[in-house]
């Protein structure tokens, strides 16, 4: 290569980039990090010291209450002798809190449903690449109905468990996932309808979206439990949980429709034109080209909406559904456990909720990374 001559007749000079040099010591490492983030100015230093002092006063007593002075052994209120938290209360009430009043010997059915949910959510990891999307979406869509069949038991010849006995945190999980799963495609249809050229479809969708988005979920629950039965023919009773599920699904769909609308607006016109130029039909374009990109763009908002819906399931307490919070209140007013264990109870519910929501956001950000094919880095 050294005797390479350029087309200008002279031998070409070979270009070689010079070697990279290490960064100055003051701009890297722990020392630099501390300086930059905690002590960069006088005000910053004062704030740092104040926060450290505050944490030093608050953390040790909290730690003592939570762990060192807490009571774990025993099974009655009398066993809670220490100054700290009474975890015996949670231990005794754990089963109702998690599973409601579902019969003792049948709890494996709830666990089976939870396992199915987990397996379905994990499907992208264990299914072969080619069938991943199709199978996983089909599995998700039938999952709520499979869960109902298992929990109800009659179709499978198992012991019949009426929905009056369904409860606890499992019920929150069931209602939330069932309405998220069905609300997402329904919301997509509404969002499509809202963009449609057909005036009839468009106005129906706009009314539905605005109604379910503009009404507080609590008002919707009351409407579902009080007003909906008025519309059914006399004598027919529709299960309370079914009504709640319908309300939650429509509520989710209304919010999701608006989330998708934002996503639709981020798709450049060129994508529709390219799809049209290779002859894809409206539905092919929508499902194969637009939908995946809309979902990718809307992922953070989809997650926010799903978490909101999941947390909103605690409002069901007010219309007398035995979800986790109303079970906790039930336990607090039990005559054997009068004595103010509300801190423990609410802390427990909060932690369980937090674990679930945090897992949801971890899964969502994993999906987000997975869907990101822009490689802008």
């Amino acid at each position, binding site marked *: 290569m050294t005797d390479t001559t350029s087309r200008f007749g002279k031998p070409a000079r070979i270009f070689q980039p010079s070697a990279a040099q290490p960064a100055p010591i003051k701009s890297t490492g722990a020392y630099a990090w501390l300086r930059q983030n905690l002590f960069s100015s006088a005000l910053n230093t004062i704030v740092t010291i104040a926060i450290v002092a505050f944490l030093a006063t608050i953390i040790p007593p909290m730690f003592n209450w939570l762990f060192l002075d807490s009571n774990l052994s025993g099974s009655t209120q009398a066993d809670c002798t220490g100054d700290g938290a009474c975890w015996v209360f949670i231990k005794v009430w754990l089963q109702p809190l998690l599973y409601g009043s579902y019969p003792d010997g049948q709890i494996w059915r709830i666990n089976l449903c939870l396992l199915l949910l987990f397996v379905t959510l994990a499907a992208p990891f264990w299914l072969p690449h080619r069938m991943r999307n199709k199978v996983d979406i089909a599995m998700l869509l039938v999952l709520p109905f499979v869960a109902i069949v298992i929990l109800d038991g009659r179709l499978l010849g198992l012991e019949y468990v009426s929905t009056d006995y369904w409860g606890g945190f499992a019920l929150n999980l069931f209602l939330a996932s069932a309405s998220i799963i069905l609300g997402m495609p329904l919301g997509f249809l509404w969002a499509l309808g809202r963009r449609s050229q057909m005036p009839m479809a468009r106005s129906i969708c706009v009314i539905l979206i605005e109604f379910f988005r503009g009404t507080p979920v609590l008002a919707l629950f009351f409407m579902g439990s009080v007003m909906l039965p008025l519309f059914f023919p006399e004598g027919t009773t529709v299960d309370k949980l079914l009504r709640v599920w319908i309300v939650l699904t429509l509520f989710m769909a209304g919010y999701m429709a608006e989330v998708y609308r934002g996503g639709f607006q981020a798709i450049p016109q060129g994508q529709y034109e390219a799809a049209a*130029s290779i*002859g894809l039909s409206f539905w092919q374009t929508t499902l*194969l080209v637009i939908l995946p990109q809309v979902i990718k763009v809307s992922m953070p908002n989809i997650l926010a909406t799903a978490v909101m819906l999941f947390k909103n399931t605690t409002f069901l307490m007010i219309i007398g559904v035995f979800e986790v919070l109303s079970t906790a209140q039930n336990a607090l007013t039990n005559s054997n456990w009068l004595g103010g264990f509300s801190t423990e109870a609410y802390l427990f519910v909060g932690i369980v909720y937090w674990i679930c929501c945090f897992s949801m956001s971890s899964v969502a950000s994993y999906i987000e990374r997975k869907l990101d094919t822009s490689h*802008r880095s």
Partner: protein
Amino acid sequence: MTTEQIASAADSSEEHIITIHNLNKWYGDFHVLKDVNLKVKKGERIVVCGPSGSGKSTMIRCINHLEEFQRGTMFVNGIEMIDDVKNIEAIRKNVGMVFQHFNLFPHLTILENLTIGPIWVQKKPKDEAEAIAMKYLERVKIANQALKYPGQLSGGQQQRVAVARSLCMSPEIMLFDEPTSALDPEMVKEVLDVMVELAEEGMTMLCVTHEMGFAKKVADRVIFMDGGEIVEENTPNEFFDNPQTDRLQLFLSQVLQH
């Protein structure tokens, strides 16, 4: 339409793969295309140029109905362009298009970008579609990038993928809407090379482009548009060496100055 007109239209469509007669289009009150007439023979290579806003892109976008027109008739490959989904789909099957901004599907790999049409529109089995896709990727010399995503390729590579994506549908006609305008200068050549190769194989091509070198080299006819009208059309030699109208003379003096 009288029977005579139908007969003449059928007649001309045998000879001409595209027949545009008195095409008129308005955006609201703005008259974009004014009585455009154009006949394209099978295998003919046509370059359309003109200042921006002259309606050249709009005209070729009418040919696969990305734009609607209000008045006039158009036959593409013997099918009349009317506002009917069946006709539009039938025409689009025969017409490929390459866009200024590539418009690849960013969520699909290069290979999936190429197979989506054959699989879903032509209902080909996946293996066959992939074989066709690889053939065209070889031709545009990026077969080794098949499993990457569009965002990982350079502009020139993306545009070559876009050409291959259109070719996978085995179109009779290729439309190019300023295919090199969004590219860095050093990538223009690789796209033009692909287009020249395509022209040499006898593809019917309509190119809106400012690449005058390309026009001189491959065009059978160069068309100059301004103000929504076809002002002048001629063979490349005559077009560049002997422009008839003052408007074209001015345009050429501005384009070819450097």
